[in-house]
């Protein structure tokens, strides 16, 4: 009975993480389209939500490698998965509160690594996997996207520089709808898979599924729905940071940033490198801005984002480890996860209410 209660809590927590993933990462997909006025904010977010939902069904290869190649499978229990998810949600909410784009994927990996470390010691963490699958791609991907955005916008300006502004604006606004759509699809295939993988991992650890089982249909549908709902409700503070606080973009810059971001995500995913869509899009936005002139990029904002990137893995790991240790005080049953869930729920609601009372809404994102 205790195992069933824990698995229900883990599934609900995983879907809550998936919601914050969509909520947090909406900015990756729509910020440039909104800031260049290619699409009205609510339309952009609605399209992104639908395409994220569709994207979650496009590829059903379970991303169990999120945990499988990074921590020792033998230490994975439902409580480890639960603690890892809480670490990821806590970091996502904290960075949303401050309006900083950070990686939900790295938050998830950090949370699971921290919980596994506390559960099984240093041997529970596969260092080579963490370095090869997470750290090195995290360093390379934003640089590649930066270079792609930088080269692309230089080429675009060379070709369209002498055209009337009206032609350019109309043309690239249409282009941004297509490039933004591809980004949303790519985001759905990448990020919803991670939640499906984590839920499947928990079901296997709890004995509900065979070790080599794929995600059941209900997992696919609920994960797709959660990320789409999160995307629809959108993190407007991060949209504002991505769309106008890093650089003020014109439509050609918006198009090239989205295109460089989409091609980097697709090329890396196809080669088997899991990466952060947030890092990629931020890099592409900065590359498109820096090509016009280096001072066009607000490097102070970019620096804050970089600090959030560096802190994501250790901060989520710290919370994940602490949550696992706290949960174990109450034994191996359901009491620990229930108490932690109640605390997180109260703290999360308080944070959201406080932010909504103080923070900007759609209108601010539009400016």
């Amino acid at each position: 009975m205790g195992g069933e209660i824990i698995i229900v809590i883990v599934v609900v927590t995983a879907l809550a993480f998936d919601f914050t993933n969509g909520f947090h990462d909406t900015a990756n997909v729509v910020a440039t389209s909104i800031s260049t006025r290619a699409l009205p904010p609510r339309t952009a977010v609605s399209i992104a939500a639908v395409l994220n939902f569709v994207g979650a069904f496009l590829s059903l290869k379970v991303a169990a490698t999120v945990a499988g190649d990074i921590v020792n499978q033998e230490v994975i229990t439902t409580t480890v998965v639960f603690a890892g998810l809480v670490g990821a949600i806590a970091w996502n909410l904290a960075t949303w509160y401050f309006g900083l784009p950070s990686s939900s994927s790295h938050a998830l990996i950090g949370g699971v690594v921290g919980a596994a470390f506390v559960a099984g010691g240093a041997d529970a963490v596969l260092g080579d996997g963490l370095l090869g699958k997470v750290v090195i791609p995290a360093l390379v991907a934003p640089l590649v996207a930066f270079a792609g955005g930088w080269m692309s916008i230089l080429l675009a300006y060379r070709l369209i520089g002498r055209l009337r502004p009206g032609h350019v604006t109309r043309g690239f606004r249409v282009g941004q709808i297509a490039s933004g759509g591809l980004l949303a699809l790519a985001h759905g295939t990448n990020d919803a898979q991670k939640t499906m993988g984590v839920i499947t991992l928990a079901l296997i650890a709890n004995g509900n599924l065979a070790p080599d089982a794929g995600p059941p249909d209900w997992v696919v549908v609920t994960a797709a729905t959660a990320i789409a709902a999160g995307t629809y409700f959108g993190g407007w503070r991060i949209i504002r940071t991505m769309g106008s606080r890093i650089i003020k973009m014109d439509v050609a810059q918006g198009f090239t940033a989205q295109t460089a971001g989409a091609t980097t995500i697709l090329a890396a995913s196809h080669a088997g490198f899991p990466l952060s869509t947030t890092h990629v899009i931020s890099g592409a936005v900065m590359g498109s801005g820096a090509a016009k002139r280096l001072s066009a990029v607000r490097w102070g904002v970019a620096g804050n984002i970089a600090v959030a990137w560096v802190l994501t893995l250790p901060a989520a790991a710290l919370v994940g480890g602490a949550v696992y240790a706290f949960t174990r005080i109450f034994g191996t049953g359901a009491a620990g996860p229930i108490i932690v869930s109640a605390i997180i729920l109260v703290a999360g609601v308080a944070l959201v209410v406080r932010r909504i009372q103080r923070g900007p809404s759609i209108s601010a994102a539009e400016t």
Partner: protein
Amino acid sequence: MIATIVDGEKLFQAIWTSLVGAVGVTLAFSLLVLGAARSSEHGRAGRRTHAGVYGVLAVVALAACLAAVVLALIVMTTK
């Protein structure tokens, strides 16, 4: 040590395909905008030959853009 942890060949392939993809799609779309705009301008000025040439450029560029979208969808569904 790094070489044993990361597949350098795959990493290099991912890097160059990302860059070629980004630049290629931007080239195609910029040519589409250029072709459509110039074709419209020459058409209004009565220069039919010029308008036709730029129109063909726009159509070819549009086909390249659509091919890129289809390729992206194939990559997404087969990864």
